[in-house]
């Protein structure tokens, strides 16, 4: 009510946030570096790749790591590093499409539901619940069953599966933001709803959505890789990390693990990097809210 003693509370909040980020700041730099390397490799695959992704040399079947094959060769004698570099394209573009689509749709629905309330809110919330009932991977498999394998069906299905998460997040964030008096002040000032939402409300929830979308990138990558692994995603001979694991799994039983492990490690690295960055952003968002 009146001027409260804020000191202990304030200190608790500030000390609290020092403790939440358990893995120091240097990790964020490493994560950014890892992502930069992968993105550059994907973009300039034609330049940096030692050989073509589908250049077969049967004498090199399951070749170990050597000067000629820096990461060895696969079951068909194709250079693992080259396939990895070309495979980064599909493996990164797919999640990018999923995240872009679901973030745009989810934010639009979520903010719309929060701002309008009433029937709009009810309809959007109920539809969200229905989509929630489908685990993302299952929806994607269903889409493949309908449309057939490839990148399109899984990506479309995953956009649909991820949108409700963003919608729910942006709805509650927008509700919270809309309850703040600065939004009320803009209404009293005579601004139109559209102006308030577009110029003030949405920009203020963007950092939060950015954090979630960054995390989602990692999850989408995992889901899409799983689909490729099942043979539903990117189709051979186009290289893809999930497909590479599937193709070379048999070799593990013969004691040759690097052709399947290497793409697996790439998946883990990229996902860890996105998780780290997503949480760093979320941390900053939490910090911003302490006056």
């Amino acid at each position, binding site marked *: 009510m009146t001027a409260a003693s804020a000191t202990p509370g304030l200190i608790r909040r500030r000390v609290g946030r020092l403790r939440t980020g358990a893995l120091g700041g240097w990790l964020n730099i490493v994560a950014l570096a890892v992502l930069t390397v992968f993105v550059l490799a994907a973009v300039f695959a034609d330049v940096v790749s030692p050989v073509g992704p589908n250049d077969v040399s049967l004498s090199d079947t399951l070749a170990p790591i050597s000067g000629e094959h820096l990461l060895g060769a696969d079951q068909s004698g194709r250079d693992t590093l080259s396939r990895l570099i070309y495979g980064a394209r599909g493996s990164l573009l797919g999640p990018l499409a999923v995240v872009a689509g679901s973030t745009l749709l989810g934010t639009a629905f979520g903010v719309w539901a929060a701002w309008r309330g009433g029937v709009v809110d009810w309809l959007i919330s109920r539809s969200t619940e229905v989509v929630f009932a489908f685990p993302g991977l299952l929806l994607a498999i269903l889409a493949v069953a309908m449309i057939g394998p490839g990148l399109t069906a899984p990506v479309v299905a995953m956009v649909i599966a991820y949108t409700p998460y963003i919608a729910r997040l942006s709805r509650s964030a927008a509700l919270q933001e809309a309850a703040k008096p600065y939004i*009320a*002040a803009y209404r009293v000032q*005579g*601004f139109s709803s559209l102006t308030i939402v577009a110029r003030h409300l949405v920009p203020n929830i963007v950092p939060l959505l950015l954090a979630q979308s960054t995390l989602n990138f990692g999850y989408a990558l995992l889901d899409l890789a799983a689909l490729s692994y099942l043979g539903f995603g990117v189709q051979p001979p186009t290289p893809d990390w999930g497909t590479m694991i599937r193709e070379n799994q048999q070799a593990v039983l013969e004691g040759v693990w690097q052709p399947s492990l290497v793409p697996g490690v790439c998946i883990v690295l990229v996902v860890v990097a996105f998780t780290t960055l997503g949480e760093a952003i979320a941390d900053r968002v939490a910090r911003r809210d302490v*006056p």
Partner: protein
Amino acid sequence: MSLQVAGLSKRYGPLLAVDDVTFTVEDGGALGLVGESGSGKTTTARIIAGLERADAGTVMVDGADRAGPARGRGQRLNRARQIQMVFQDPYLSLDPRLTTTEALGEIVALHEPGSRHSRRHRVAELLDQVGLGQREAAALPRQLSGGQRQRVAIARTLAARPRLLILDEAVAALDVSIQAQILNLLIDLRRQTGIGYLFVSHDLAVVRYVTEQVAVMHSGRIVEQGATHEVLARPQHAYTRLLLASVPRRGWDPAAVSRARRDLHDTTSDKETV
């Protein structure tokens, strides 16, 4: 411009938050709306500002009812120039991304679109009116102290040149030494511009410095209204007397006050039961 509120009611589920509230604020006058949390004072203020819709009643300004939703941009801006509102929490009432100058410039551009030069001039004038300097003009809300933020919030309302300002617990979140600065600023502003105030507060002592008229609310109803000094000196309603007696001062006896409170609650509705 006078504000006439008549028969205002608002229900939330089973709770009658505002119950047949009627009062008038004369042109350039200052009315204190006093009550505890849950008395309905803030809901009343928000209805008048157009942030909530009343179930019944009218909010008349210059003979026109503004209780319904605004139709079109013209009416929206017109209403904005009638009544503005300052909120309790000076941090949450500012967009965290905008500097003081940006926040003010935006409102000036809406209400007085003109050359960039004239807008800048108007922003400088507003800053000057509330006693903010160059540093504060360029600062983001989180870089300002509570008192400075509240000055920005006040300047922002003045940008629309309203005839009436609703102040909803506008000094309650501030420390005493800063509270007095803001109260004096409000008194000076009114003297200079002739603006009217609807001053919503739980604090009778504060209301005394800013208003000539006062209305005391309890459980959604106005239980007493009149000239501020009269009501403070000779409170008629038992609740007003309790409210006055609850303010600590020399020779104050909390035990006696709490006995009085229990008596009042025995006679009226008992909302504080476990």
